[in-house]
């Protein structure tokens, strides 16, 4: 039973407690002595046991980054917290505590075994992140709603579940219900579920499960659809032509244009609008398709480039490896020769030879690397030129298409203006159609108002078009710059790394030779 913490002194997880625990549970005997000498870093610890310590609050565990197994059972913990850093955790034992709600487990994606036995939990939730969960122990809690079981259906790997000692276990249907709703479960309350029970349970709850399944399937399908749509949009976005495969832009032009909407109710304007819309959409679709095509082109360009660079680097590495292998073979021979040699002058001569060998290797490797750097630089520059050209061409073409849009808009504007003027004339004459609404009538009081209204509508439209164009151009340009930057940066990084590697190796070889020298002298 849960300890009452007023009868005992609650304790805090502090450095001393952790050190003690780590020391006790660490390596033993000879290895233990070594460990003591060196000290163990918390971040190297794989398993930690902190049971029966009257811990009230989980704290100070953030250093244990690589911890796999954590036991905090038989304490007086009230809240699951402070475990966010332990992302490698596979096994977590929090049984015999005073936890009331499940929480704070959202980062533990690797968790397979979770024990919350003998706590005060009343509902199962907040476990969504634990996709690998296999064993879940929730016995002796206060779970009283069967619907909690349905929540567990999402854990595909769940094989073992214990729920005994909860109010729901009183229900006569308890076992059957669980077997039916969790068909992959193998052990329930520490007992194997036999096939017969499974069949009976399934038969019993057949209809409700079918319904549930249907609902789940529908949900799944919807999710997939959503996903597909998102992916599609993402693809369009990478081509910088999203929402151009329809009337979206056109609609957005009129969305904020109150005057335009009012004007469209004028006789003749709606037909005009229809024609305008059709033409506009056609141009938009043109842009869209062109954009996708260009995206494809850029992609193949990039792929070829990557492939070629990769090949070049591989080839270069192979050469380097061959050189090193050859060197090592020779080096090993000469080292053993030096060891066996007795005459001091000879030894010195041989050591000298060795060191020249090493510097020769260094030169050779560095030459290779420099050569590769040069070659790659050339290739990268070529690629940069090509991709910038491609982008430029694309922008140019899109701009010309957009200009067509603007022309259409201008044309439409003129027409609308014409109609408006004529309507105004009519209005002045007083023979306006009766069926025009008050709002519209308000526009036709004098020439300025009318022209302004039409002009405002036109301005809004142009602004929209310009915005779209600007967005496209900026985005593609920034993409291009980023790409080129990244390629340059990567190449520099690669070069740095290789040079460092070569230096490290050469240093090691030299120090090995030096050591040999010293030891010889000492001998």
């Amino acid at each position, binding site marked *: 039973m849960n300890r009452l913490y007023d009868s005992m002194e609650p304790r805090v997880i502090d450095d001393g407690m952790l050190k003690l625990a780590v020391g006790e549970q660490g390596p033993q005997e000879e290895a233990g002595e070594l460990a003591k000498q060196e000290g163990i870093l918390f971040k190297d610890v794989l398993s930690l046991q902190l049971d029966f310590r009257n811990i009230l609050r989980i704290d100070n565990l953030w250093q244990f980054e690589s911890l796999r197994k954590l036991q905090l059972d038989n304490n007086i913990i009230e809240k699951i917290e402070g475990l966010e850093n332990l992302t490698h955790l596979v096994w977590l034992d929090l049984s015999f505590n005073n936890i009331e709600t499940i929480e704070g487990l959202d980062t533990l994606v690797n968790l397979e075994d979770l024990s919350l036995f003998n706590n005060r939990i009343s509902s199962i939730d907040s476990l969504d992140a634990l996709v690998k969960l296999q064993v879940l122990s929730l016995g002796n809690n206060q779970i009283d709603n069967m619907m909690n079981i349905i929540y567990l259906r999402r854990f595909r790997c769940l094989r073992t579940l214990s729920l005994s000692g909860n109010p729901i276990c009183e229900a006569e249907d308890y076992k059957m219900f669980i077997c039916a709703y969790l068909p992959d479960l193998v052990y329930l309350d520490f007992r194997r579920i036999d096939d017969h029970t499974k069949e009976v349970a399934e038969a019993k709850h057949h209809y409700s499960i079918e319904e549930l399944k249907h609902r789940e399937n529908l949900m799944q399908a919807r999710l997939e659809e959503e996903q597909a749509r998102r992916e599609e949009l993402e693809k369009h976005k990478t081509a910088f032509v999203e929402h151009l495969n329809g009337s979206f832009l056109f609609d957005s032009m009129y969305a904020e244009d109150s005057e335009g909407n009012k004007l469209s109710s004028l006789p003749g304007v709606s037909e005009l609008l229809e024609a305008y819309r059709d033409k506009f959409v056609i141009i938009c679709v043109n842009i869209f398709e062109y954009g996708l095509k260009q995206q494809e082109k850029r992609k193949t360009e990039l792929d070829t480039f990557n492939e070629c660079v990769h090949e070049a680097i591989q080839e270069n590495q192979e050469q380097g490896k061959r050189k090193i292998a050859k060197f090592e073979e020779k080096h090993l021979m000469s080292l053993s020769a030096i060891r066996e040699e007795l005459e001091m002058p000879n030894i010195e001569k041989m050591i000298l030879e060795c060191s020249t060998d090493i510097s020769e290797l260094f030169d050779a490797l560095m030459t290779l690397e420099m050569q590769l750097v040069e070659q790659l630089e*050339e290739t990268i520059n070529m690629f940069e030129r090509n991709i910038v050209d491609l982008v430029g061409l694309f922008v140019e073409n899109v701009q010309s298409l957009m200009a067509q849009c603007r022309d259409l808009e201008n044309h439409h504007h003129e027409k609308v203006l014409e109609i408006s003027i004529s309507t105004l004339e009519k209005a002045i004459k007083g023979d306006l159609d009766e069926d025009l609404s008050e709002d519209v009538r308000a526009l036709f009081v004098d020439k300025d108002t009318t022209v302004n209204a039409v002009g405002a509508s036109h301005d809004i439209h142009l602004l929209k078009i310009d915005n779209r164009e600007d967005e496209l151009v900026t985005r593609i340009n920034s993409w291009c710059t980023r790409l080129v930057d990244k390629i340059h940066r990567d190449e520099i990084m690669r070069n740095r790394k290789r040079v460092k590697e070569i230096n490290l190796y050469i240093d090691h070889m030299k120090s090995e030779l030096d050591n040999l020298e010293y030891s010889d002298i000492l001998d």
Partner: protein
Amino acid sequence: MEVLREKVEEEEAAEREEAAERAEWARTEKMMRPVEVRKEETTLTQETLRDLEKKLSEIRIPVSAELPAFTKDIIDISMLPVSYKTNTPKEEQLLQLADNFSRQYSHLCPDRVPLFLHPLNECEVPKFVSTTLRPTLMPYPELYNWDSCAQFVSDFLTMVPLPDPLKPPSHLYSSTTVLKYQKGNCFDFSTLLCSMLIGSGYDAYCVNGYGSQDLCHMDLTREVCPLTVKPKETIKREEKVLPKKYTIRPPRDLCSRFEQEQEMKRQQEIRAQEEKRLKEEEERRMEAEKANPDALHGLRVHSWVLVLSGKREVPENFFIDPFTARSYSTQDEHFLGIESLWNHRNYWINMQDCWNCCKDLIFDLGDPVRWEYMLLGTDKPVLSLTEDYSGINDEDDVENLDKEDEDKSFDMPHSWVEQIEISPEAFETRCPNGKKVIPYKRAKLEKWAPYLNRNGLVSRLTTYEDLECTNILEIKEWYQSREDMLELKHINKTTGLKTDYFKPGHPHALRVHSYKSMQPEMDRVIEFYETARVDGLIKREETPGTMTEYYQGRSDFLSYRHADFGPRVKKLTLSSTESNPRPIVKITEQFLRNPAKPAEEDVAERVFLVAEERIQLRYHCREDHITASKREFLRRSEVDSKGNKIIMTPDMCITFEVEPMEHTKKLLYQYETLMHLKKEEKLSRHQVWESELEVLEILKLREEEEEVHTLTISIYDTKRNEKSKEYREAMERVMHEEHLRQVETQLDYLAPFLVQLPPGEKLTRWQAVRLKDECLSDFKQRLINKANLIQARFEKETQELQKKQQWYQENQVTLTPEDEDQYLSYCSQAMFRIRILEQRLNRHKELAPLKYLALEEKLHKDPRLGELLKMFT
């Protein structure tokens, strides 16, 4: 050249006589069209020809005596069917036709050799060659294709040379006789082969022509053995990959072009010289190998098989030499000319010139200019529609039309030869006595029937260094159905290397075992079927001081293990039973990349220097690196200068890490690694030791297997499988007994009485009753007779006994002990007989009424009487 001259002469003569004979020819011609002979310029004078003739007549042909002649005396003709001994009227007619044809032919072409049309068969009856062909499809699937067919014929028959190498034989035996005696000349060979090929659907023809000496004598000593020819390695040309758009430019070439060119020139010169030398050598060798010129070149008669394209997906015309079963192109220079050819339907004479061997011949049998046919059959090959079509003028066609009408009626009669049959035993044994030796150029091939040799040897190829076949180069022996799965044994005599090849299924999963001696710890290579082994071992190589093993597909990714052994330490108290393994100096193990581990933690190679107490580790190289991490552990002293135990010091482990990591610097980590490696070292040593033991075991097993060489017998092999034979015989016996019993139960009681009645009539009721009564009374009588018989015997026996007893009583005093013994034994025997008879009588008395009743019951139930009797009762 002789053939050329002959031809020329022949043509000259033909030319001269052609005009004179035109008229007569036209009248007599029934089945032949005018023969057109190609005109050629003649350059030879009559004198030279005469000289030649003289020379030719002086040449004597040596007939090899060691080959047994296949004469008529051996053949038993008494058992042959009547079709062999007589001719049907149709055959007679055919023979007349053939005679007529032959006459016309010899008239028109007097200088060509007489046709080979109707040689005598084994019963001295002339038979037309086409009827000697008996198309037969063999019941063995192996004989469906031409190559296996030809191989069978060449294996099955022993070659007998022609009695006169310049003439076709006078006799042509039926294929059945040839098969029975398993020998024949080239005509017998090709007749049999042609029959089989036509039977399995080929467009095959027997050819009567001229062959080279090698061909006629089945002399393969100038041919390279097909088994020694190594298959040409197909050199895969690497496809040149088109340089991609962004392929990096190669670094600038700083070598002097001029120097390169000079170098190239020099190289070329050297190569040219080398080539020249090789060529000369080759020529010299060729010269040496070339046969002596044959005096009878072009005159030697040979018979072979021609297969025309079209049927059975044969793409090209080709020849098959029935002696050697080899196929030749129709251009091959072994074939020097064709006189005639025939299949089971027709007979064609070659009207083309053979001055250039068979190279210019066109095998379009529908072309009457090139091929003169004998029977105007409807199913002869149609002339192919090439430009030759214009060669036939329309008049001829019109003329021929009415002739065709007459002759169409005559078909080739059915073959007189009995069905060709090959028993399964003969088919399996193949060669006469199951053994055949074929000499080749620098090689000898021996073949045996399966199960003939106790050790399963089926063929052996011996390769020699020289043409005379004295110095053996290597021997290859093929085995079959051996229990140890040995398939091929290859012995190289020059290096002394022996290589055994195994089929899958050896208890040790052996695949190849090559060795020089069977002693352990010597040079040897053993390859395994790695899928059959748990440890995935592919190959184990041994030299006197090392052992190398190659693995594949292991879960620990071990791919290679190499062990160096030191010299054996002499033990002072060496007992023979105790094994004394050699000390291991060094073990090298290599591992493949384990994709589950990061490269810098995945060991690529570890070396245990056992003697120096050192362990070297080399890790795998990460994909973007060119250097690999290394680690070396030294285990020098366990105790430091002050006597304290050293657990681990930094100088015990020399590390090079490509990307230095924090945790690996710790002594704890190094200590744990070292402990782990120590364990591994122990395991590896144990493994090496076990491998050694396994080699010993394999060697022992191999020796045993060589000793015993048991052969496996398929359970379907009913003849050889003793177990199944016994079982089958037992089954047959049971069947036989069962049959006997059935016959007994079916014994008809009524039969003797039914016979008395008129047959075919239905029984009347009265007859039925009478029948029944008769039957019963007869049976009663028999029972009584039997009883009487037993009674009589019994009485006789008793009387005799009494007499004997009387006699004994009388002469009891004078009897010798022997007589007395005799008497006593007689008495006991007689008593026994009497007792038995008494028992029989009693039994008979008991059973007789029952038997009677049983018969009555049976008669009641008998379907023949039952109805009537039931009505009666």
